């Protein structure tokens, strides 16, 4: 069952901390957003394997945008 990881705030992708194939636990950061001089991790909502990171460093994402897909 695939699950989309969505950004909870608007920001610029500062860092990608997981890659396709990585196993993540609930609460692990998948990417880090930079917004208003703060670095904010976007975390996996459940444990799983990263199928795809759908954003690139430097890209602006809006609140609610999908940033990664977990299997």
């Amino acid at each position, binding site marked *: 069952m695939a699950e989309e990881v969505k950004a*909870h*705030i*608007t*920001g*610029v992708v500062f860092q990608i901390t997981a890659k396709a194939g990585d196993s993540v636990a609930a609460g692990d950061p998948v990417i880090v957003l*930079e*917004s*208003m*001089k*703060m670095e*904010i991790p976007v975390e996996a909502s459940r444990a799983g394997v990263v199928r795809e990171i759908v954003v690139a460093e430097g890209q*602006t994402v809006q609140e609610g945008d999908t940033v990664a897909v977990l299997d």
Partner: protein
Amino acid sequence: MWPPSRRPAPTDPLLSSVLVANRGEIARRIIRACRALGIRSVAIYSEADRDWPFVTDADEAVAIGPPPARESYLNIDRILDAARQARVEAIHPGYGFLSENWRFAKACQDAGFRFVGPPWRVIQQMGDKVHARQLMAAAGVPVVPGSDGAVDTIDQARDVASRIGYPIMLKAAAGGGGIGMVQVAAESALDAAFAAAQRRARAAFGSDALFVERFLEAPRHVEVQVLGDGHGRLVHLHERECSIQRRHQKLIEESPAPNLPADLKSRLTTSAVAGAKAVGYENAGTVEFIVIGSDFYFLEMNTRLQVEHPVTEEVTGRDIVQAQIAIASGDALHWQQDDIRQGGWSIECRVYAEDPAKRFLPSPGRLARLVLPTGLGIRLECGVAEGVEVSVHYDPLLAKLVASGSTRDEAIARMAGALDASVFDGVKTVIPFERRVIESAAFRAGRVHTQMVEEGAFNG
């Protein structure tokens, strides 16, 4: 409208033109000071700020690049190009961005512009937190128990920690603003914390040098505004209390500091002046202290205009930004220490685009509706206008509400009304949180410390 300031009579003509290397409310504040002095002001702006009010406030404006700060407000070459293009005499850095970057101050000077701030060597000295601490200690200013200099190894850190006692703080030697600090509760946590602090320091400041300090429980943050003219005169403009903070950054400030005994206040201002004189300080600066009981310790010196300078202006009737420009023009400061009195009470609430219900997460967006408070004792330093986009690229400070009165209670009552009357629709702001703070029994009694917000003291 604050009381008219008594600007020093110029001995030389003032500067004719100033480029403001900043944005938002502080750019507007500096432009206003220029206008009052008859000085031509030049704004610089990134593509994201095209529609912001500071751009049209200025006499001229120069576009300097795309939204990311490193390509605009942090880009020294582009700022100097704009200064040459606009043929200005001086550059005012405001706060944040390049204001405490000694390389920028030196580059301004090398390119033939006056820098509205202290000499670059002083910025460099105070920017190195270890060196600053040593200089202040040598000047007789109390410093927090800790390492004399940077510690290079975990073993050195462990030695210092066992001498001064846990809990301790690991701080980036090149840091400031609370960035890169790691608290260590006990020796068992030191190894992991030391590695984390080094990593953060390297990432944020390009240097992993750390120093160790004792962590102080429930301290107050009290700071002293100083002003030096480079002709041998250095005065203080009394103190500010700035203990209401989140993420080690201030939310609410006031002057005077409540419940500050006269002898403690006198020792603070005397230390601030002694420390600033010892480093040959010029222009406006702030010496920050932490206060515990009747003890106080040097925290750091901010070698720039401070966000919260308006509360000091309100209680002293002195225009600090105009004084900065006069000093940068080469004027001698004719202010006598004994004439600088602190009258009444003034409180500032910073309006940040952050959601207090979500642990102060940033809240960018378009400002759909803006209503600003007014009334007796209310002063606004507002960077935004209705319809502007509050972008992800910059600090979330939108505006500062300043309420003053003859007593603290009067200032608090006016602030409550100002917070209630403010509307910043389209983004979340910290206003509802600040409303709870100023209503709280602890704040009303002036019993505040820097860890209260994070301890959840105001979560109603």
